[in-house]
């Protein structure tokens, strides 16, 4: 396969992974899909690094693989097991409805990209916007901290594609600090998950609805 075909199939695979994530209602399968997606993202960055001969992109790619495909998912699963959180996830609507909504969102993202950035990088930009919107959908449709956290990570993956495809990545130091921020963020997520599990014996956000006016 030529690099363009390969990169297009990697992008397509990430899109499919995000769509499948919408309807997953078990923690392990949701995390596994996220891992697969992150691995594809890492390979995509490696491919770009190879095509452009950019060493700093290769460094970023390896860090993405290490951090998003291994460290963060493993960390989340470990926290879930250690705190005794339920394997079952919850959503406001049924999984089939979520899948359908996901498809609509993808259509919308492709149409919007056509309006906003019609020139070059169309497919990558459209996939990236789809991932951001699908991640956002996951974030707002889930009723538990794990689903919301992984929705956020899905958004981040979409933004990463955007950065890689359109600009060939930001300067190395900035990318590194951004990944560091992400790591700290997930340490905080884990800390809050543990506290919620300790206080309410649940990570459901239904119980986090007391502060209203």
């Amino acid at each position: 396969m030529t690099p363009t075909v390969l990169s297009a199939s990697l992008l397509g695979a990430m899109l499919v992974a995000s769509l499948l994530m919408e309807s997953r209602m078990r923690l392990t399968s949701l995390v596994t899909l996220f891992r697969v997606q992150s691995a594809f993202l890492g390979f995509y960055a490696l491919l770009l690094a190879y095509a452009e001969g950019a060493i700093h992109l290769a460094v970023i790619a390896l860090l993405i693989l290490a951090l998003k495909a291994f460290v963060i998912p493993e960390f989340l699963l470990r926290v879930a097991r250690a705190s005794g959180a339920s394997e079952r996830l919850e959503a406001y609507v049924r999984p089939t409805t979520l899948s359908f909504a996901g498809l609509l969102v993808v259509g919308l993202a492709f149409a919007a990209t056509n309006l906003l950035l019609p020139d070059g990088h169309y497919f990558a930009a459209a996939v990236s916007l789809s991932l951001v919107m699908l991640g956002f959908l996951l974030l707002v449709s889930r009723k538990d901290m794990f689903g919301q956290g992984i929705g956020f990570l899905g958004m981040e993956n979409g933004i990463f594609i955007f950065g890689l495809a359109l600009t060939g990545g930001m300067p190395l130091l900035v990318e590194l600090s951004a990944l560091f921020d992400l790591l700290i963020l997930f340490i905080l997520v884990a800390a809050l998950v543990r506290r919620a599990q300790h206080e309410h014996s649940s990570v459901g956000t239904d119980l986090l609805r007391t502060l209203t006016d």
Partner: protein
Amino acid sequence: MTILALILLSILSGVLPFFARRFETVTALALLGSSGVAALSAVVGMPALLGASALSGGGLWYVDPFGGLLVLLIGFMQWTATMASVPYLGEEVRKGITSLARTKRYFALLALFVLSMLVTVVSNNLGFMWVALEATTLTTTLLVAFYDRKGSVEAAWKYLILCSTGISLGLIGLLMTYYAASSVMAGGATLDWTTLAASAHAFPASIMRIAFAFILIGFGTKAGLVPMHAWLPDAHSSAPSPVSGLLSGVLLNAALFAVLRYKALADLSAGGSGWTNGLLLGFGVLTVAVPAAFIIFQADYKRLLAYSSVEHMGLITFSTGLGVAGPLIAVIHIIGHALTKSMLFIGAGNILHRYESTKFANVGAVMRVLPYTGAFFLAGILLLLAAPLSPLFVSEYFIVSAAVATHPLYTLIILFALSVIFAGFLHLFAPLLFTAPSRGAEALAEKTGERWNISHTAMLLHIVLLLAFGAFLLTGAAYPLLEHVAASIT
């Protein structure tokens, strides 16, 4: 050089308290560290405020007069917040709410929070500015979740997820700016703001327009703009009071500062400010009007102060969209609101500790029970409601006179919202200050009286500064300096 020293000192002042074993030593070291940070902030901020913009650190740092002003505000307010933290945490350690270990963690997080705000406003590189802005969320999440109270986890979770999502959307805006730059800049694009600004006139305007929309929605979440403000009342009311003051007083402005950096680029590329001003005015009006409804029926005084911060961010955002006169008004309002709000939160902390409740229903006769805090709180409320001699009086007067001819409908909505808020404040705070609470009135008699402590000194410092600034605004001498600061915003 001085900026690097400031950064190192902030880190040091976070580490220092860990070397102490007693509460008194911990707070003394924290005070020492924050005094140093305040002094160095003055060294960094003052020359920039009074003189010209300066690049330093090989193009890594850029402090213009507006950035210098924010450095000064951050430096001063983290100092008074640390002062107020001493009796605040002392009381909690005495009551057994907080342990000594948590006190150390508190000061460490506070120092890191201050550090991330400082880096946000002195970064020339937009990438590092983004990283630092995200770091402000990360460092304060554990401060929002500081207490084991019901609702703290909820507030912290909402804060972390909503703000991080917002900042991520801001990253899309940042990447689009980078993309726009790479399409025109020979020899590769950069994220240095000064370099970008020099060639921004050639950026494709259509891309910069979308980029600015992403930035405004993304960073606007962090600045508390309606409808992305849902996290703000929860987070600001759950945090320890001195921290709430910093969150409301300076952090929101640091986020808005980042938005204004991109506004300058978008305006240059479009050759005019119609698009950005339209968005800022629209979000501004919404952000003033919606909190009014939540203020008049508010049951919790810390939440009320948080909603009032949303309203004031709306006024500042609105004024930045007003064109030529806008930046000057925004500068006055930022100074006035920052100093007033953080002082009120310090006062709210004293009230909270005496009555052990943040509900209006459980608090009353503060003027009699806490004479110093009550008097300062009353002064603060009057200053916040823009009674004359308050800097906010001047800025709100300017907002109305600048906007009434060009945006009559917006001005009308703002005036209506301001009068509702005025009524809400008087209706809620007059009983709080002057009449006994509906519950627990008999227990009140033995609680009466307070001794002057360092938190009162902090509040008094704020009031003196506010009145001096208000009086300064009435003389013509203030305007050349303020114009100088405002000129660096557009």
